[in-house]
Structures are given as C-alpha cells and as structure tokens.
C-alpha cells in the first residue's frame, strides 16, 4: 500500500499592527472601537508605570522580589478585553495588565510582592485566581474551575496564562489533555517571551512554534504577535468563540518579549545580548499603539502628559494603600490554615512566644512554669 497522509495542518500567525506601523485594514478595521482603543492604551501605560514604581520600591527596600511585566502588557490585556467579565482568568505572575483591566486592585498585587497574603484575597466577583508562583500548575485549576461551571450549566469559560518555560512542565500537558478529552472550554495562552529566567525558549521546545504544542491534544492552535493589541484581541475573539460555542479548549501562542529582568533578583545581562533587547524595544506594544493613535488623531502630546500625571497619582495612591494597611497580627498565619483551627494548632499559636512548642507546663520545673505563666499573661495583655 502507498504511504498516505494521516494528518496535516497549518498554524496561522496573526499580525495586524506591526512594529513599523503597517496596519492590516482587512483584519483590523472595526475590531476595536476607537474609544476602547484609548482605554486599552491608558491601561498599558498605567501598568508599565506601576512596574517602574514597583521596581523602585524593591530597590529601596520597600518591597520584596518583584517580576516586571514590561513589554508583555498587550497579551493579558487583549485577553481580558475579549473575555466576559464572568469568565475565569487564571494567571501566572506577569499578567498585571489584564488583571487590572478586570478590576483587581493594584494594591492587591503590590501587597502580594510585599510578602502579605492578603494581597491574594482576590475579590470573588473579579473571577480571577490568585497569583501562581510555581510554573505550570494553574492550568489544571483553570480546567477544574471551568468544569465546575459546566457542571452547573453555566457557559463560563476560562483563559489561563503561562510562559514558554512552563509549557515544559508535566502539569501543562496534563491540563491540555484533560481539557481536550473531558470537553472543558479553556483558552490556553502561552506567552512566549523567549526567556525563562536564563533558559532560552529553544531549550524548552525544539519545535518551530509553541502553538503546535496544542495540536497533539486535538486543539485548534493559533500564533499571534503578542506585542500587537489588535492581534491579541483578534486571536482571543476567535478562540473565545471557539471555546464557548464548542465547549472545547483551544491554544494561542502570543509571541512577546520580556523587556525587563526575570525578577528584581535577576540580572538578564548575564545571559542575553543587548542587541536582542534593543530590537525588541523597537517592537514595544505601547509605542506601537501610540504611533497608531497619533496618526489617526486619537491621541496627542497633551493627552499623553495628562495621562501620565493621572496615572502617577493613581499608582502613588495604590502604593499608599498597600503600605498603609495595618500590619497583620503576629499569629495571623495560624488562623487561615483550616476553616476551624485544630486544638493542637491553637496551642502552638497561643504559646508561640512563651513555651517550647507542645510542652505541657505541668511537666516543667516550677520556675519554668512560673516564667511561662508570666509570659502568657504579658502576651495576653499586649494582645488586648
């Protein structure tokens, strides 16, 4: 028998507004109303500026390690813009722009990186999950959240984000496989930013695209220019429509670039070439959109300076709120371990500053018992 073709496909690449300012009228016309375009631009500028504020907070010792979003604003923003407000957004840690679009308070994100779990207490109506730090684990949660919605007869879908590096994790592949086989409408968005800390994307995949990762799970796959807000919106519209109408998942690779270091603890100069960074700076999603808007008289210098002033104030207010929150009680971390604190844990909490853990005072020598009693009453007095 002759050899036949068992399967054949192609992966589309979407680009609408390229780095040189060329605009594809056919795909882009009417895609985003002008008024929305201005709002999207403002959101990106605001997020970029907060990134700079956060960087300075870290450098001046007012915040812990922080991962900058710089350069990737158009990816999560395009997704958030297209998703319904009650679709789940299940993110990693470089999707601030999309989260803020959903109404997540900036001080929540700042608090998280200031070492305070209260930053993760995402208000439920935003339909977003907390920041996930280990890579690749959250896509399964996105599938579960969506399956729970489906179980109730809701048509809510989920969009989950991860990077080129995380797409090497086993959980990513399990999530794709589960979503495809169990018919769960999740839009998987791979932000290929070329660097997983110092690991180049070629070490994470030998295939020509990351988009084709979805192919082996039977999903429709797309690649788009992740620095082009028109392209991310277009790709998301197509994918969201697929997910909602078929009840099955799909996959988008958004090609972007991490302009900053991995985090404030990283120094990208150790492993990547400045020429490469400079080339990507010329493809910045914000500059590209501003040039487009200026050319179409949607934007000008006066609007720009007014925006910068307004955003500076908003971000300063967010920092003030994050820094102004009352310090958590010293025993705060005990109280949300379980719905009801087990007696043993309550004992540890109540004696954390007074006893060797678990030691029954009646088994101690009299002077130690006396000291423990005194410290307990002092601690109680301080607490009240």
């Amino acid at each position, binding site marked *: 028998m002759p050899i036949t073709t068992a399967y054949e496909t192609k992966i589309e690449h979407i680009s609408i507004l390229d780095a040189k300012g060329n605009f594809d009228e056919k795909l882009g016309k009417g895609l985003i109303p002008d008024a929305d375009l201005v709002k999207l631009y403002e959101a990106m500028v605001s997020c970029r500026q907060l990134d700079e504020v956060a960087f300075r907070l870290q450098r001046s010792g007012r915040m812990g390690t922080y991962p900058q979003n710089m350069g990737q604003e158009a990816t999560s923003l395009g997704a958030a813009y297209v998703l319904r407000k009650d679709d789940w957004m299940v993110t990693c840690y470089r999707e601030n722009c999309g989260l803020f679009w959903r109404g997540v308070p900036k001080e929540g994100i700042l608090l998280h990186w200031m070492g305070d779990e209260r930053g993760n207490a995402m208000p439920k109506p935003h339909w977003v999950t907390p920041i996930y730090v280990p890579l690749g684990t959250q896509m399964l949660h996105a599938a579960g959240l969506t*399956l729970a919605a489906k179980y109730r007869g809701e048509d809510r879908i989920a969009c989950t984000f991860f990077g080129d590096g995380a797409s090497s994790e086993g959980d990513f592949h399990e999530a794709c496989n589960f979503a495809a086989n169990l018919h769960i409408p999740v839009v998987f968005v791979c932000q290929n930013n070329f660097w997983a800390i110092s690991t180049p994307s070629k070490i994470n995949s030998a295939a020509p695209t990351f988009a084709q990762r979805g192919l082996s799970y039977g999903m429709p796959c797309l690649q788009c220019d992740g620095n082009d807000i028109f392209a991310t919106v277009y790709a998301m519209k197509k994918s969201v429509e697929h997910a909602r109408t078929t009840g099955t998942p799909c996959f988008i690779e958004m090609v972007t670039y991490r302009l900053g270091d991995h985090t404030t603890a990283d120094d990208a100069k150790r492993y990547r070439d400045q020429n490469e960074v400079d080339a990507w700076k010329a493809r910045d999603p914000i500059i590209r959109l501003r040039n487009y808007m200026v050319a179409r008289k949607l934007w000008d210098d006066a609007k720009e300076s007014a925006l910068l002033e307004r955003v500076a104030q908003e971000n300063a207010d967010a920092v003030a709120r994050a820094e102004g929150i009352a310090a958590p009680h010293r025993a705060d971390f005990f109280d949300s371990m379980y719905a009801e604190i087990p007696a043993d844990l309550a004992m540890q909490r109540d004696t954390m500053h007074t006893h060797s853990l*678990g030691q029954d005072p009646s088994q101690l020598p009299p002077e130690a018992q006396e000291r423990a009693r005194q410290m307990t009453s002092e601690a109680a007095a301080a607490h009240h």
Partner: protein
Amino acid sequence: MANLNLVQAINLALIQEMEKNPDIVLLGEDIGVNGGVFRVTEGLQKRFGEKRVFDTPLAESGIIGLSIGLAMGGLHPVPEIQFEGFLGPAYDQICSHAARMRSRTRGAFTVPMTIRIPVGGGIHAPELHSDSPEAIYAHTPGLKVVMPSSPYDAKGLLVSALREPDPVLFFEPKRIYRAFREEVPEDEYTLPIGKARTVCEGTDLTIVSWGASVVQCMQAIEKSSRSIELIDLRTIYPFDMDAVAQSVSKTGRCVVVHEAPLTCGFGSEIAARIMERCFLQLEAPVQRVAGFDTTMPYYKLELDYLPDAPRVTRAIEDCLAY
C-alpha cells in the same frame, strides 16, 4: 443495619452523601464503568450518571489539579488515586496547592476535597502498591489525614470527610478491605475527624495504632494476660493527643504500632508528644513497632516487613518488663 465489609461501607457512605449533596463528584482512573480496581465505586456511575462519576486520563497530578479547580469552583470532588504508590506525581498539587490555598488567599479560595487512596501492604500486590505514606501528608500543614480500621469507622469518617471544608486524604487500608464484616448502620452517623477510639480498655500499657495494624494489635492483645488499652488514632492529622496522653498517664507505658517506616513515621511524633505531656508519668521508654527504613519489599517478604502480632507482643513484653 447491614453486615458490611470496608469496601461496602465506603460505597454506602458515598451513595448516601451523593444523594444528599449534589456538589459531590467522583473522578479517577477506572472508577466509572469498572467501579475502581477494588470495586469501591461499583455501581455509582450507573446510579449517578457520567456527569457525577467519571473516568479521567491516566495522570495523577492532573486528577488532583483538576479536583482543586472543581473545589475552588464550589464543588466537593472525590478523586481516587488508584494506589498510594501513585501519589508521587500528585504530591505537588496536594502539598503546594490544595494544602495552601486557604492560607495563601486568606480564605478567599478553599479546597473542600476528599482524596480516596487505597493504602498499605499485605495483599501480595506488585511494587509501589503497598506503601504507607501517611506521615508525609500529616507533615504538610493544611491537610487532614484519615485512616479507618473498620467498616463502621470507614463509613462514619468518610461522611465527615465529605462534609469537610478543607482537603482530606482518606487512606483506605486495602489489607482489610474485605478481611472482615461488621454491623454498619444504614442510618446517617458521623465520626469526628480528630477523635481517637478506645478499642479496648486496660490499665497496664497503652498501644497506639491506626489502619490495618489495629487488627494485628488486637491479636497480640487477645494473647496477652495483661490489661492493655488499645487506642485507634483513626485520624493522623489532626490527631487526638488528649486521648493518648490520658491513657498513657494512666498506664505509664506505651507502644506505638504502624506499617510505615520507622524514621519520621507518625509514631515518632506520638513518642515526642508523650515526652512533652506524660514524662513524669512514664514507667518505661515508649516502644515503636513499625515498618523498617527499607524500601517496601516485594510480596514474598512483605510479611517480614509489616508489623505483626508476634512483634507487637515482644514490644509489649519489653515495655512491661522495664
């Protein structure tokens, strides 16, 4: 009242709670048409439909990760991990996510989930089908760890687990899945998570055990002429240290028995707690009868590894002779 084995008691508990609570869904490998490799979920897919009882791809991390999402989305998933030896791939999802979700979001997201896991040795199974990893999960804050030793306890504890707002690992000792039957009420009852059971009372020595080892302890006690109290911990975390301390303060002597390896087995924790709470009442050092710090052997030698009545008897005698 029906005379049930442990498998049937769990099956009954699942049926009754699923009838009451439409948010309970069952998922795992081979649990649907096949009813699970131990037939614990037999008939449940037929009864409740494929929407509530479904087979998943063969990926343990995926099963638990998906369940975490289901739980965050308001359901109470009951994933089955086919054997405790396959928990490894799911470790990250259990310990890095399920266990931490409430704490790291300060209660904004919670993971009410009951993970069912056949556990332990003694059934001549292949490798990685006979381990006892309960201490690993008891060592992970945010989880609850339960291991019944009888059909009656299994039903009452499982119903409690299915009503828990936090993740529970429900370990089912496969050695006693069908080893004996006992009267199990059809009517609803619960056994509290965190409370031990005094299996038999005594005044000379306390044995603390859980899971299938409780049966071995009973055999040793029946052969002994001394008055021995047996405490079945029932739940490994939270554990009922008050019951242990009260008993050991009375008897002054204690033997802890479990299948898991000795070092950092949960017996280590029990022994340390006894030092903290009963030091002045102790008449002898705490003795431990446990699995050894070796890989669980293939089944030809598994009975040499597992604590049995003669080993428990030796520990009782040594402890009493001190």
